[in-house]
């Protein structure tokens, strides 16, 4: 662990300097430099003209997932607008084709194929749930497309054709567990999640970490079917086990029922430590701040993150989408996609997927709202983890911020 961290810090420092230089160089001359010839920057028949390059956005605009994915679409469009205002990429304006995955996994695959085969887009920003990504992934691999995927997810995947701008499971989970073990002296944990792959994989990693690294004990592990709204029995089980920490990954409508019923059962933040990996500012709107007071979330980004990038980002976002817009972790990660792609394309001097992919590892973004990110060899991002404590008004107070964490989608000893 330590060596990795040191290593990371050293690289961090080094790359900060180069990145600053790079970004200065990029921002200034973009407009003045003559755009390189199309034949040079696109040899694989992508939708690139002398003045434009076409990209795709592929999220659910309708259906059950539209709630969650709307923020990502907004963030991606904001980033693309900003890039276009700065002169575009390689002298070309970005044009967007938006497709609706309709919360239906085969539709994602179908629309991905349309974007790649018919529209020949240079890259796609999209997918949200693991299921939609899993459905679309074979298409991206077969057609050799490029996907920027924004959601924090279970890991266990690494594709030539995908850049993962959210956290993989270990980045999100391990530091949070270390923190509660240290700060709260937690020894016993109760794990609860919705019944599907992300919570199950996350809980598996959490359990290994608790048992093998922290020397703690998992006193219960529980999965509720998606859409479950009655947590009475589960809450009683938790009460019987009296865990030091409840570790939760419940999603969707169940999440709201879960927190409301916790509060109604008298399990509140002042009596019980609860750490969740499935509540961002987006979810709080539905759950209600009053039901979360004192509980903790771990994410890589919360709105109050203090830095200039974030201030600008929030201001721009609110200016475009209204003052009461809320930005959650995934929305921020989605915002990174177009910027990371821009940097990689410019580094490669080409839109061709293989060249962009080859150029991607090592790409850094000092302008990220979350602070600083860097693309790892394994196509995930180096990023920080932050723990926030929820306040009654639905805002979060950041109580812990980690160092940069190396992404490790296939964590040894955790599988």
């Amino acid at each position, binding site marked *: 662990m330590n060596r990795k961290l040191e290593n990371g810090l050293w690289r961090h420092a080094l790359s900060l300097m180069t990145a600053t230089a790079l970004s200065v160089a990029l921002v200034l001359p973009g407009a003045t430099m003559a755009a390189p010839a199309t034949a040079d920057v696109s040899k694989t028949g992508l939708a690139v003209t002398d003045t434009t390059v076409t990209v795709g956005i592929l999220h659910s605009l*309708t259906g059950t997932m539209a709630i969650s994915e709307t923020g990502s679409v907004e963030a991606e469009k904001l980033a693309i607008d900003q890039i276009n205002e700065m002169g575009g990429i390689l002298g070309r304006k970005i044009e967007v084709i938006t497709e609706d995955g309709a919360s239906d996994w085969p539709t994602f695959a179908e629309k991905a194929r349309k974007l790649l085969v018919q529209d020949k887009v240079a890259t796609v920003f999209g997918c949200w749930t693991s299921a939609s990504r899993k459905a679309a992934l074979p298409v991206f691999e077969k057609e050799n497309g490029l996907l920027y995927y924004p959601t924090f997810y279970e890991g266990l995947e690494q594709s030539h054709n995908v850049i993962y701008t959210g956290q993989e499971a270990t980045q999100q989970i391990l530091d949070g567990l270390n923190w509660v073990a240290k700060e709260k002296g937690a020894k016993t944990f109760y794990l609860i999640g919705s019944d599907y792959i992300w919570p199950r994989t996350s809980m598996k990693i959490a359990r290994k970490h608790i048992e093998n690294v922290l020397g703690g004990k998992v006193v219960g592990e529980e999965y509720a079917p998606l859409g479950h709204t009655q947590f009475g029995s589960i809450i009683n089980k938790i009460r019987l086990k009296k865990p030091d920490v409840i570790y939760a990954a419940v999603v969707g409508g169940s999440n709201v029922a879960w927190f409301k019923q916790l509060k109604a059962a008298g399990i509140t933040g002042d009596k019980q430590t609860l750490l969740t990996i499935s509540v961002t500012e987006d979810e709080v709107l539905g759950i209600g701040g009053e039901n979360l007071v004192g509980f903790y979330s771990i994410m890589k980004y919360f709105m109050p993150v203090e830095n200039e990038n974030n201030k600008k980002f929030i201001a721009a976002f609110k200016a475009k989408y209204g003052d009461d817009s809320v930005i959650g972790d995934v929305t921020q990660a989605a915002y990174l996609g177009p910027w990371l792609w821009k940097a990689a394309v410019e580094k490669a001097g080409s839109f061709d997927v293989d060249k962009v992919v080859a150029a991607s590892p090592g790409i850094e973004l000092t302008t990220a709202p979350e602070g600083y990110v860097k693309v790892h060899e394994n196509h995930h991002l180096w990023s920080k983890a932050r723990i926030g404590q929820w306040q009654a008004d639905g805002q979060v107070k950041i109580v812990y911020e980690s160092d940069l964490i190396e992404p490790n989608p*296939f964590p040894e000893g955790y599988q």
Partner: protein
Amino acid sequence: MKAIYNNLLGGRQGVIGLALLAALIFLVLPMFLDIFRLNLVGKYLTYAFAAVSLVLIWGYGGILSLGQGVFFGLGGYCMAMFLKLEASSPENTAIQSTPGIPDFMDWNQLTQLPWFWEPFNSFPFTLFAILAVPGLLAYIIGVAMFKRRVGGVYFSIITQAIAAILTILIVGQQGLTGGINGITDLKTLHGWDIRTDSAKYLLYYINGGLLIGVILLSRFILSSKLGRLLLAMRDKEDRVRFSGYDVSNFKIFIFCVAAMISAMGGAMFTLQVGFMSPSFVGIVPSIEMVIFAAVGGRMSLIGAVYGALIVNYGKTYFSETFPELWLFLMGGLFIAVVMFFPNGLAGLYEKHGKRIMEKIKSLRRKPTPPAEKTLAAGNDTSAAAREAA
């Protein structure tokens, strides 16, 4: 020969209908669509299997199964299991802690292939299972329900609950089933890459051929005495029983046949789309399948195919163009079909066709008396029945 002509092909009108459909599937669509769109049509046509099966069981049998998605899904899963095993050869999965098993099992810490996956290494067994597994489930459900004379609304609600159960099971047992993600990343069938354009063309044609075959089979069933019995049972179940028939056996039979037809669609779906997931098993897809049949005409086998094509094309088109409008349209379509066109497109065609015929006739002789008109309207179902038979 004449018997074949009349029973299988449904006489002159049936031959024309079938020929038109075959021409559309095999000639017109491939000529005008690129492979991307054609693959979509192929996907829609897999739903047509389910719609045809609903014509059998719902239109003729009067049994509204809200669980056709279950059988569609089971067929699809059987095929997906075989393809997944082929995709998970030890070489392809060398980075796993247990190479040689599907990736999602590895993530769920399974160290060996579950017993019920083993037989799916064999392609002949898989083909057998695609029909046998849904058929067996349908048989069990059928015996349990029809022998105890559960029918009508109760049957619909129970099949719906079964769809819910199977979805929860598949999602909950992700180590064995791939969970909510389903079984993905299917690549080859006996080394033949199913993702290439040529494979897609071939699969499309196989799919179309199977569909025509299924329609012929269904016609054979419906034009036999069994078909008449189904209609008889739908309207006067007691009378059939008191004519000495064991009604439940016939219901079980047609339910099993319908299940197997849906399952074929599911298997073709997996091959053409490249994955299978629990979202095709549940309540919503099952009801959508009923709508395909209702729009096409619940008494018309060929109508069901058009119903599946049109509703799905509409879904793709409108969700691309006016996503907001889509649900309104779909909902409105449900209501309109049920309230105003209970015989769907086939019924409309019948009426329209008849009117044109009448016009042609009326040019030759005096206008037909109104009495005959009402007569014709009253006989719509049987007229549609004859069209399908």
